[in-house]
Each structure stands twice: as C-alpha cells, then as structure tokens.
C-alpha cells in the first residue's frame, strides 16, 4: 500500500496520480505495473491496459501543467516518462514477462549469460544441429550473393522451408510462455519457482529462434 505524498490518502489504481487530491506523485520507485495500476502478473487484459495508458497519458500530460508550479511541472514530466516506459514494456507479452521476472529477482537473458553452469547455458540441444545447418545454408546463399551469382533455387527453397519451421517453433515457445505465465499467476510459491525456471529457459530459446528467423528473412529478402 502506498500513500499520496500530498494528502496521505491511500493510492488506488495507478500510483502515478492520487485519486483523492489529484496530485501527481513523484516516486522513482514505482514499478511499471504500479504505474499503470495493474496487478503484478503475466496475464493482463490488453484492452484495459491500453485504455488505462491513454487515460493516464491525458491526465499526466505536461501541457495540463503549463501554469502549475515548477515542481508540479517536473512531476508531470517524470510521471509521463515513467508511464511511457511502462506502456512500452508491458504492452508486449515478452518484454512484460522479462520485466516481471527481473522485478521478482530473476536474472534474465544477457544477465544470466555466462554465469550459470555450462549445462544451464546450453541452447536446446535438439536445435543445435539444425541451427548449424541453417547457418551453413545462409552462408552459402550470402556467398553467392556476394559473388554476384544467381542464388541456387534449391538452397533458397530449403531456407524458406527452414524459416517457416523456425517460425512455428517460435509460436510454440510463445504458447508455452503464456502457459507458464498462467501457472505463475495462479500458482503457489513452489509452482512459481518452477514456472520462472521454465520461462527463463523458454526466453533463451525464443531469443535464439528469433535471431535465426530474422537472419533467414534478411538473407531471403536480399536474394529476392
């Protein structure tokens, strides 16, 4: 529970502004969920989130404070900046997930790279062979592009098929992330730890797949 710095009333909904006296709050410790008046959970209602963002944007907009005190103007600016960061982070399921895990004290992505034991750092071994093969295909195609040769149609076709396969794997990872997120939202403490571990691994897999899909698209785009 947090209280208004001006009238001491308990804050409801967004912690950026007091529903009692209307004072914009100046508190750098407010997290993105609190800023948007959301519960700290993975599952959010996208429509509610967006509506709340727009409402708060108007409410906190610096233009409304043009004739207010210098302090209030500063508060409005800071709150608007925080609100925008919060919106950008929470609107996307993946960045929201990463953010929440970090809030909960988990090391995510680059942060846990090179730290854990090597077994934990390894990408999914079922993917390694394919990833390596894919990279060979990409290199071959780029090489022929560089030499100004026409791309080998068979290679292009193989690559396109691989790209589609990786995209569906990416979709499967997103589905799995959503499922683990739901477990976190509804589960007890032990279930949460398990879900978090799963999600961190899934995020690694996702990052891997996303890079590959991007490489395939770029290379095929250049070949077209």
């Amino acid at each position, binding site marked *: 529970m947090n209280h208004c710095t001006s009238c001491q009333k308990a804050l409801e909904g967004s912690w950026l502004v007091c529903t009692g006296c209307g004072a914009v709050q100046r508190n750098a410790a407010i997290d993105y969920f609190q800023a948007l008046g959301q519960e700290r959970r993975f599952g959010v209602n996208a429509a509610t989130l967006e509506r709340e963002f727009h409402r708060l944007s108007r409410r906190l907009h610096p233009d409304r404070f043009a004739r207010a005190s210098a302090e209030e103007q500063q508060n409005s600016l800071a709150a608007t900046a925080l609100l925008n960061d919060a919106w950008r982070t929470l609107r996307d399921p993946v960045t929201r997930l990463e953010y929440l895990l970090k809030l909960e004290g988990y090391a995510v*992505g*680059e942060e846990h*790279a*090179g730290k854990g034991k*090597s077994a934990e*750092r*390894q*990408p*999914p071994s079922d*993917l*390694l*062979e394919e*990833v*390596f093969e894919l*990279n060979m295909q990409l*290199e071959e195609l780029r090489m022929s592009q560089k030499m100004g040769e026409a791309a080998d149609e068979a290679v292009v076709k193989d690559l396109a098929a691989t790209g589609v396969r990786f995209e569906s794997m990416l979709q499967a990872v997103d589905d799995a992330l959503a499922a683990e997120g739901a477990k976190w939202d509804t589960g007890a403490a032990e279930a949460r730890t398990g879900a978090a571990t799963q999600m961190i691994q899934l995020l*690694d*897999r996702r*990052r*891997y797949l996303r*890079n*590959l899909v991007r490489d395939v698209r770029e290379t095929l785009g250049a070949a077209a």
Partner: protein
Amino acid sequence: MAYSDKVVDHYNNPRNVGALDKSSEEVGTGLVGAPECGDVMRLQIRVNPETQVIEEAKFKTFGCGSAIASSSLATEWVKGKTIAEAMEIKNTDIVKELALPPVKIHCSVLAEDAIRAAIGDWKKKNGVAETEAVAAN
C-alpha cells in the same frame, strides 16, 4: 567496443577452419551454442588412438569476432596436446590471451565447452571412461 589486435588477427586469419570426417572413430565433434547471442560453434579433433594426442583440429563458428577468435585459438592450442592436457585448457586462459572484455567472456566459455564436448564425443566413441583418460596423463 574495440577488439584487441589478437582478436582481429584471428578474425581476419582464422586458423584451422573446416571440417573433419564426423563418422571417423578418431574424430571427436563438439557442437555448442550460446542462447543469448545465437552463436554456434563446431570444434572437431582427430586423436591418435595410440598416444591420445590431438593431431588435427578444425572449427567452424557462426558468431561474433570474439567467438571466432576464441574457437580459432582453441584449435591452435589443442593441437599437439594429449586429451588430458587439452582438458586443462580454461576459458580464462583464452580471455587472457585475447584480452576479451567482460561482455565477451561467454565466447571463451563457449570455446572451452566446445573443446570438452569434442573430447567427450571422442571418448564416447572410443569407450574411454573419464577416469581412464585422467590416469593416462
């Protein structure tokens, strides 16, 4: 971020790029990757069955300059070493030699993992238990 001269040298003139016959009994293949950056590294060794000396090493890495330099250096270092000696190579040695910055340390870890994976694969193929190889040292 500036790469050290040694990294640039290995990047521009990578040593031992290529492939060895994966199906050969004498060849160990290590395929490792880093999820955070998408790098993949394949390191292969050909081991003399009598002496357990690594006579040939090849690599192919898809990744950043540091990852390529780390694996290039790893192949140079394992060549001429016995299996047991090669197991002693630490990622920190690679970091030192290439003057890798902290954000690129995971590239050296990857190279160490690749060496171990290649050796592990060779051991598995040849039915060498972990303890035996250590005893042979």
